[in-house]
């Protein structure tokens, strides 16, 4: 297959949520000498941007977005190991997770997908994440973004604990901190000293891009 066909095929596989095709074409890209970063930027990210636009326009809904994300991660699994380490290091690290005591992660996973598509190096800490893990990730990456999510009121306090921990460890000024989830608000972000609140994944990407 020609370069353009492969890249268009990766884009189409992501838009269509076809993980098998995304993986197959990503392997073909590498085999045919296409740079991994080109396959990501010109195929995968292009596809995810289309998915993001369709989701915002209410043409795509969660099933399509989740399948597209699955295809994207399948492609990334193939492509990421082929990116030179010095180029990988240029991406801003985002430590993302659902705070301690909560396991509702569908919103967090959508944000993770959109941030990955936007070119961030996303370190998914998972769910029920203790404050120390957010802080440890910020320390390991000398700052970056700390992104916290929760769906429940009793677990909001975990976000404040992370913010306090970042201050105590001297990392706060090196980080941009963003929160999201049903009980959160910009007011709460202000109260705990976080930089931003995002109502959805698209807004998270927009706010972080503007700030970084």
């Amino acid at each position, binding site marked *: 297959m020609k370069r353009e066909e492969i890249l268009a095929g990766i884009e189409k596989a992501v838009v269509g949520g076809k993980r098998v095709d995304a993986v197959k074409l990503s392997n073909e890209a590498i085999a045919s000498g296409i740079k991994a970063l080109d396959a990501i930027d010109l195929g995968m990210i292009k596809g995810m941007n289309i998915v993001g636009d369709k989701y915002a326009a209410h043409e795509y809904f969660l099933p399509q977005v*989740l*399948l597209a994300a699955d295809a994207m991660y399948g492609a990334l699994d193939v492509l990421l190991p082929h990116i030179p380490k010095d180029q990988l290091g240029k991406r801003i690290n985002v430590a993302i997770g659902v705070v301690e*005591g909560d396991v509702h992660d*569908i919103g967090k996973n959508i944000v993770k997908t959109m941030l990955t598509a936007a070119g961030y190096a996303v370190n998914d800490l998972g769910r029920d994440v203790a404050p120390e893990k957010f802080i440890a990730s910020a320390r390991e990456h000398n700052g970056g973004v700390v992104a916290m999510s929760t769906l*429940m*009121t*009793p*677990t909001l306090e975990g976000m404040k604990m992370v913010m306090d921990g970042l201050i105590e460890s001297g990392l706060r000024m090196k980080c941009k901190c963003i929160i999201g989830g049903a009980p959160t608000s910009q007011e709460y972000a202000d109260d705990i000293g976080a930089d931003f609140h995002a*109502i959805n994944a698209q807004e998270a990407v927009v706010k972080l891009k503007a700030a970084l």
Partner: protein
Amino acid sequence: MAEQMNHIQRAVASLQDQPVDRLTTYPLAMGVCRRCVGDGTMKYSDWVSDPKKFASAFIAGQKAFDFDFAIGLMDLSVMAGDLGAHVRMDDQNTPFVDDPLIKNPEDYEKLHVPDVRKGRSHVLLEGTRQFVDALKNDVITAGFVEGPLLALTQTAGAEKVFMDMVNNRSAVHHALDVMTAFDVDLVKGFAEAKPAGLVWDYLWGNYSCLGDAQYDEFEGQHKYAGKLNKLTADMGMAFCIHNCADLPHLDTQVKKFAPAIYSMAYYPLIPGSPAPKEVIGKGYADKCLIGGEIDPQLFVRGTPEKMQQTTMKLVQEVKTALCARGLHSKYCIASGCEVPPSVTTKLENIATCVETVKQYGQVDCAK
């Protein structure tokens, strides 16, 4: 101001859009009312595990706050837990599934309807019976139950179900048949408790998650929600809906399903989220009593002064919209979703909301 109608008179009149002495009000205070029982230290995990304790919160809450309704929401993990998913029970947090039951498509086939006389289904049904018995002469009572799609996503994990809607469609439909059958048994159990109504949580009917076609296929069609809505009415209970998601499918859930009450939330920062005056102005209150839409977080983080201001603002917005629409009373001043059952929720804010509606909730369109 002295009340001229009792709670039941007011609620019934509102359901029929008759003139009322004031708007109805019900901040959705369920689990939080466990703090009104005894010394206020009842653990959440105890509240959701014992029918008598469950009922006691509604009884104590009614005494403390003088609501116009009593709706028996426990939490959204009752069905999933009884199906076999692992439910985490913290002392002071809403129970939640921390280990979904479905790991592979074949697991959907293994789902079976549990006995609703056991497990937390029993706690919910028996607890509902007890608070209905205690309060039925005072307020309109209702049970609360998860719709089949919500119950399935709680059991299986939402991401998995949404992806399997495309990749393993028939397996999801089989599982929804099981959820619906489980819901049928619950409806019959609730009917024995004799509440005036039954509130269905149809959370996934929202445009942030599903389009019309997929929602119709996986919940809205006759064999799922349609069947359950009809059964609810056939068993003598008013069929009601709670949906606190953003961008709800109002045309489907209000106009097509035709509930007696529709409880909803408002998200001012989300484009397209309908404000109360829009909901009324677009005719949805013509069809049913709408409930909402105070931000539940205000009960936790706000002051009583802020709660009064917010409630007054909502009351004024609703009164203006009702009068413009030629309606009298088809709006219940409520929270958009459950008042957080957290130990940090300020009980005085619940009282302030109710008292503000009592003081300012009179509707006089001539003025």
